[in-house]
């Protein structure tokens, strides 16, 4: 688990209110709160992981431009931001697929190389295996498990981000975990 503490709802809502007033300092604060998780989610969700930084930038630019559209009564700030991220990742993957089909882009990286050289080979291999299994999951299961693991969102936050019920999210997570457990045990 990561060392940072998740931001409180009150803090996040105060930051969004400041953002709606056009305070650029609030944008920096929002990025500090949710930037790492959104970048992590994008890196795992995108076919080309190196585009995660671009997607993360776009998420926060959209938040800046449309801050006044955020309604605190309709859900958490995290859900609102991750919903933007989920949609952007879908668009990126769709456009990337077409670009690869017509040969504009090269094939996607076979595995994520973000851990860097200092991470031992075993961990990289485990990560690559897990990513490969996650890629085979149905889209909604993949989104739910990545929002949980990479974004560290609660069931309610995931439900808001995906526009579904908490019960449906729980079902998606149960199925995703079962597939991951079975496939990863099989490979070990």
């Amino acid at each position, binding site marked *: *688990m*990561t*060392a*940072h503490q998740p931001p409180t709802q009150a803090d996040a809502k105060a930051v969004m209110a400041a953002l709606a007033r*056009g305070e*650029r300092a609030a*944008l*920096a604060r929002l*990025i*500090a709160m949710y*930037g*790492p998780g959104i*970048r*992590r989610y994008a*890196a*795992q969700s995108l076919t080309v992981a190196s585009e995660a*930084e671009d997607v*993360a*930038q776009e998420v*926060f*630019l959209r938040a*800046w*431009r449309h801050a006044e559209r955020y309604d605190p009564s309709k859900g958490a700030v995290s859900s609102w931001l991750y919903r933007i991220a989920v949609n952007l990742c879908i668009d990126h993957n769709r456009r990337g697929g077409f670009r690869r089909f017509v040969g504009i882009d090269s094939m996607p990286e076979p595995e994520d190389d*973000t*851990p*860097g050289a200092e*991470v031992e080979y075993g*961990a990289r291999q*485990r*990560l690559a295996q*897990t990513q490969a299994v996650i890629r085979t999951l149905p889209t909604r299961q993949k989104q739910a*498990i990545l929002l*949980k*693991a*990479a974004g*560290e969102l609660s069931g309610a936050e995931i439900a808001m981000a995906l526009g579904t019920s908490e019960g449906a999210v729980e079902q998606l*997570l*149960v199925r995703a*975990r079962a597939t*991951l*457990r079975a496939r990863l045990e099989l490979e070990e």
Partner: protein
Amino acid sequence: MSDHDNTTKASDAEFDRALSALFAHPEDEDVAELSRAVLSQTVTVNRTRHEVQGDVLSEPLPWALGFGGLMAIGVALGYVLSSSAIGDGFLAWFAFGDLLSVMGGF
């Protein structure tokens, strides 16, 4: 809640934690670059009228040339179209040609 449910929940939580740890990298927490990139783009998105006027005052020649060129094209087109409307098209096109040659055209 039964013991089985509790065990399953604990096991799921453990699984999610392991998955989070697998995806987490220390460098993820560094958002300085991301912050800088986003904030610099918000500056260009939100340029005020005064900032644009500032550009005109600090670089007057290119803006004046662009404005002058557009005015000349507008005058020429207006002359041609109005002359054509009264049936004097032949002379008008000659005049338009002369004007373009003055401007470096033809």
